């Protein structure tokens, strides 16, 4: 028995660990460090219809145990992703989750329809939570009715399951999650970054050229855990959790909160080997805790009696 294997809509994962979108490019950089086939899946960088340069630099600023970024969805555009990046990724035995973004609903739909047909794309991740672009992105992720409408339109055209990436920058994330579930989403991924800002003490001006940026890293982990804890109890579709994951212990915490798989983001920047390291450490941790299979852990923090049933020690 592969005690790390996880089955999710469209995804048969050999393990529940995947690099998060925007933190792994299209895999080329990290392929020089290890065989990408060890990964459960790869969430590729957000793809839009046309190439995008993104925001001016500086695009990153460090914060206590975190970082702000304002990249602005830089990507080579749909045609190039289809012609170059996805075919290159076919050499690896790993399902791709294609993160898609757009400025209009029509753009989302067009990208979704086309990219969902690529042979190694097993699921879509609908990016309605990027805080760093003026049009689109988070504009679709803060009003439940709008998010639901977009989800419905993308579901109609996609030939693979659709996961929707939730923004934490909302008043009621449960209402958002429920609206998206009702619109037909196959799963949720959460959380995207939290909007933040840093100001240079010498100049008195924001450090990021964009002014604001998205906060990620260990600093946001407690917020991600809380939101997954709340949302997983309110919906029945699976959640891929993310937000400050650095270790196998973090992964388990996300499962306990209610996640069924976990994405690693910012930690890749600090340790390029972090994903394979976590994958190797997970079975050891499961042994220590007397857990037979990782999936037993999903929602343990709120499921009544779960701990007594599954924990040998």
């Amino acid at each position, binding site marked *: 028995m592969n005690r790390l294997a996880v089955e999710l809509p469209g995804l048969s994962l050999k393990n529940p660990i995947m690099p998060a979108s925007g933190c792994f490019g299209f895999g080329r*950089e990290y392929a020089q460090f290890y065989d990408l086939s060890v990964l459960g899946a790869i969430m590729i960088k957000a793809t839009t219809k046309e190439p*995008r340069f993104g925001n001016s*630099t500086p695009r*990153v*600023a*460090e914060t206590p*145990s975190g970082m702000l970024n304002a990249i602005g969805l830089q990507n080579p555009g749909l045609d190039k992703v289809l012609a170059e990046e996805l075919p290159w990724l076919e050499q690896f035995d790993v399902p791709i989750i294609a993160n898609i973004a757009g400025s209009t609903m029509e753009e989302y739909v067009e990208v979704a329809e086309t990219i969902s047909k690529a042979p190694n794309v097993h699921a879509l991740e609908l990016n309605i939570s990027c805080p760093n672009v003026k049009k689109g992105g988070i504009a679709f992720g803060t009003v439940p009715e709008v998010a639901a409408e977009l989800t419905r339109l993308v579901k109609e055209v996609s030939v693979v399951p659709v996961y929707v990436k939730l923004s934490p920058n909302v008043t009621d994330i449960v209402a958002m999650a429920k609206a998206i579930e009702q619109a037909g989403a196959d799963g949720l991924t959460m959380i995207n970054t939290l909007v933040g800002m840093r100001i240079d003490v010498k100049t008195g001006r924001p450090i990021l050229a964009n002014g604001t940026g998205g906060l990620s890293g*260990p600093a946001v982990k407690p917020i991600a855990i809380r939101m997954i804890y709340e949302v997983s109890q309110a919906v029945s579709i699976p959640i891929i959790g993310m937000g400050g994951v650095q270790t196998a212990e973090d992964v388990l915490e996300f499962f306990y909160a209610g996640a069924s798989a976990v994405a690693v983001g910012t930690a890749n*920047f600090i*340790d390029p080997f972090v994903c394979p390291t976590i994958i190797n450490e997970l079975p050891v941790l499961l042994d220590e805790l007397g857990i037979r299979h990782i999936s037993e852990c999903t929602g343990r923090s709120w499921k009544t009696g779960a701990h007594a049933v599954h924990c040998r020690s």
Partner: protein
Amino acid sequence: MIGRERMTVVSQRMIAERTYELTLSGQLVAQMNEPGQFVHIKVAEAADPLLRRPLSLCQIDHKQGQCIIIYRQEGKGTALLTQKQPGDRVDVLGPLGHGFPLDAAPAGGRALLVGGGIGVPPLYELAKQLANRGVNVVSVLGFATKAAVFYEAEFAAFGETYIATDDGSYGMAGRVTDVIEQQGLSFDVLYACGPKPMLKALAERFRGRPVYLSLEERMGCGVGACFACVCHVPGSETAYKKVCSDGPVFRAGEVVL
């Protein structure tokens, strides 16, 4: 090959105002060859500060298995780095990026090395390797003030060396570009590292000549994945180069400064 290693601190000393020379040993040195490449250093085991610090290689010593990094204490991360003692371990990722092209300098030709402030260190390994190839090295090094000057004698060992300070407290008063004009310095190839205004001035003054510039930008990953350190390519709105993995050294005109 890029590797990650907990390298050992051999020594650390202050060589100028807020400027430190850190000597590290480890297997990773065997992978280091190109002057102008950098290493990405995690200054603390803890999550704060979170990101690595990109610092350029100043000296590579394959025989001793050591490398030297010179950095200026600017913020919290570099302040922590100054605390490292001989025997301490430092988490190093590298070598990263593409350095100065040595082949651009013809043997017997003349290479002009222009450094500004904390942009000076990578030029030292460059001067050493060029001199070994029989290239005549001339160095022009600019600093803010006398207290910031370092490595004058070290550069002088490889050829003519001019020092300029912004406030005139040491060497010649003024900017490196002034020194080049005043001394009528000619070259077959120019290599530079320093603040962007200096690089811009050199690129404009010597447009069309073989000029190679090492850029600095705020970085995330250091390996090309995060898209933090991109710059525009002339004539295109969407084309880009990444300072960390396509650079940090570019030929003048290759990217928009």
